[in-house]
């Protein structure tokens, strides 16, 4: 039912990373994170602000050092404690705010051809017969759906959506195999978001680039991603195929996230049934937990709607619940069974007879 997983492109094992305060105290943000991105795979990473998802993306891109664990790229060591945090062509980033991530003093053509000059012409452009950086910039602009005339524009002359297209073109210019896109559409207007999301999907298909899509919008992840990782307080609490995880979650945090996301169809259905909207929600109480707080027990227990005494003493490990799906909850199997029954499309395949 699940297509064979593509060979691993990036593999993170037991990654820990944190930030040192001026007092010398280190606040650990990532706790033993395992994550895998396959060749040309679209992987979503979701979680609330402050849970560490951006830090993890930054570790991959070499912007933040890790303090334990390792990241391998095609089997070779890419990041490990003590290794120089070299920026690599293979892993590129697209940031949330294209206003602050493009140099305002350079033209779009200049921004793109500079990358091509510094990094060299990537194979995907060489195979298209491109030799000069300026010609490469034109091909990239076309690939992201911008008119050639944009080449001489400055970033401030473009709209937000056009700027984000430039951000994608700039990332592509380095010839990456993985693009870490950190909330690439959350700063854009609704009417433009759809265009950028479709572009991301098209670029994956055209250039066979894998994407790690860091997002807080579950609908965006479901729309685009093959697999999803759900992060809570610096730990992966659930992962699996995106559709299946979001159709029948196996972790209470995923349940809470799903029920918190407003949805047009659900809103209309609930109201047509006369229910007050949100009546059936799994309220996730209180405020976000600092990832640096670490003790025995489940990090989510104080906000969880299913917490029991056991959750305060035993930290639930991330374990496989069904094929290709894992959850870090003592009650993962029961939660999955309960949610799978409610799912009205049996094709999701989570119910084991």
């Amino acid at each position, binding site marked *: 039912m699940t297509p064979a997983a593509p060979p691993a492109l990036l593999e993170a094992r037991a990654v820990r990373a944190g930030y040192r305060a001026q007092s010398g105290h280190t606040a650990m943000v990532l706790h033993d994170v395992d994550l895998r991105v396959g060749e040309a795979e679209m992987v979503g990473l979701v979680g*609330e*602000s402050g849970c560490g998802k951006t830090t993890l993306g930054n570790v991959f891109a070499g912007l933040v050092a890790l303090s334990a664990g390792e990241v391998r790229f095609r089997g070779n060591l890419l990041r490990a404690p003590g290794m120089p945090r070299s920026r690599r062509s293979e892993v590129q980033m697209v940031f949330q705010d294209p206003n602050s991530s493009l140099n305002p003093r350079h033209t779009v053509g200049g921004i793109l051809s500079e990358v091509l000059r510094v990094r060299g012409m990537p194979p995907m452009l060489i195979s298209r017969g491109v030799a000069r950086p300026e010609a490469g910039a034109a091909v990239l602009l076309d690939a992201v759906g911008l008119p050639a005339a944009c080449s001489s524009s400055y970033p401030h002359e473009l*709209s937000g959506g056009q700027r984000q297209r430039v951000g994608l073109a700039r990332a592509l210019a380095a010839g990456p195999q993985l693009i870490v896109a950190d909330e690439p559409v959350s700063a854009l*207007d*609704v*009417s*433009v*978001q*759809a*265009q*950028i*999301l*479709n572009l991301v999907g098209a670029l994956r298909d055209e250039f066979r680039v894998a994407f790690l899509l860091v997002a*807080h*919008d*579950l*609908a*965006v992840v*479901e*729309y685009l991603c093959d697999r999803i990782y759900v992060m809570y307080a610096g730990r992966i609490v659930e992962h699996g195929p995106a559709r299946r995880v*979001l159709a029948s979650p196996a972790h209470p945090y995923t349940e*809470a*996230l*799903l*029920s*918190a*996301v*407003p*949805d*047009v*169809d*659900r*809103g*209309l259905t*609930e*109201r*047509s049934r006369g229910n*007050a*909207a*949100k009546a059936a*929600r799994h*309220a*996730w109480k*209180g*405020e*976000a937990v600092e990832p640096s707080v670490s003790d025995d027990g489940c990090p989510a227990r104080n906000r969880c709607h299913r917490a029991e005494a056991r959750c305060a003493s035993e930290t639930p490990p991330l374990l496989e619940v069904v094929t290709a799906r894992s959850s870090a909850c003592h009650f993962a199997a029961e939660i999955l069974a309960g949610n799978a029954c409610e799912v009205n*499309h049996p094709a999701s395949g989570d119910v084991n007879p």
Partner: protein
Amino acid sequence: MRAVDGASFCVARAEVCALVGESGCGKTATALALARLHPEPPALYPHGTVKVGGVSVLDASPQTMRRIRGKRIAYVFQEPGTALNPVVTVGKQVAECVRLHRPGMDPAGEGLRFLSMAGLGNPDRIWRCHPHELSGGMKQRAVIAMALACGPDILVADEPTTALDVTIQAQILELLARLRKELGMAILLITHNLALVAEMADSVHVMYAGMIVESGPAPSVLARPAHPYTAALLRAVPRLSRRHDSPGARLRGIPGSVPDPSQRPEWCRFAGRCDGETARCREAAPPETRPADGRTVRCWHALGAEGGSR
């Protein structure tokens, strides 16, 4: 330049009324006009009337306006960080609202009551905090507490949850729904998120380029949009419960952008971005029509009440 051009709508007591549209459509400009919060000059109100609880706002004296702002109509904005004074404790800010708007009441006691009414669990501690010590969700609750302290008839919530995480967003929306029920307070919800409209609004007004192009009961407008702009907005958002596998279910953005207020055409303002455009659309601006069930629409080719084929 006309930021808002002939917008007419009515918010009833305890009603949740939504104003939706892309950035630059005039949603916030409309909302600010309700309490004349635009700086005058340069802002002008050449036509129309705004009545809040029967009092005409646009020709009211400054003294009358002071009584309307806060007491009749209060605001909660997107970024709670900028709505709070960073160097004054939350308690003092809430107490000030009580002192100004509820003379004769105990500012501290009432203030604490409003903080807990806004869902802040430990009001005594929050009272002594400065805004930077609070999370985004808590700051937004503090801002809501300040609005409640004024005792408004209508709360204008301008993208109140856009800056917040989804779990916190759900908490704030539940709070607003509860306050509306318990206090009979009307809410004008300004948002670009159609899902919020589907979940909590009674009525909705879709704005485009300074005009209301479609209005009606929220469930009916979202289930059967009559204006192509409303339909296009609905097609642009990914929905969790939809299968997007089939090519027809792919998201479609809206090409182009909202025309600048100085360059709005004489004819239909959505022409050029609309996929159902005909020659007629560039001849004259479509008048407002009333197809059915309390709905109005400005389109020469309003989609049928069955939802049309688009």
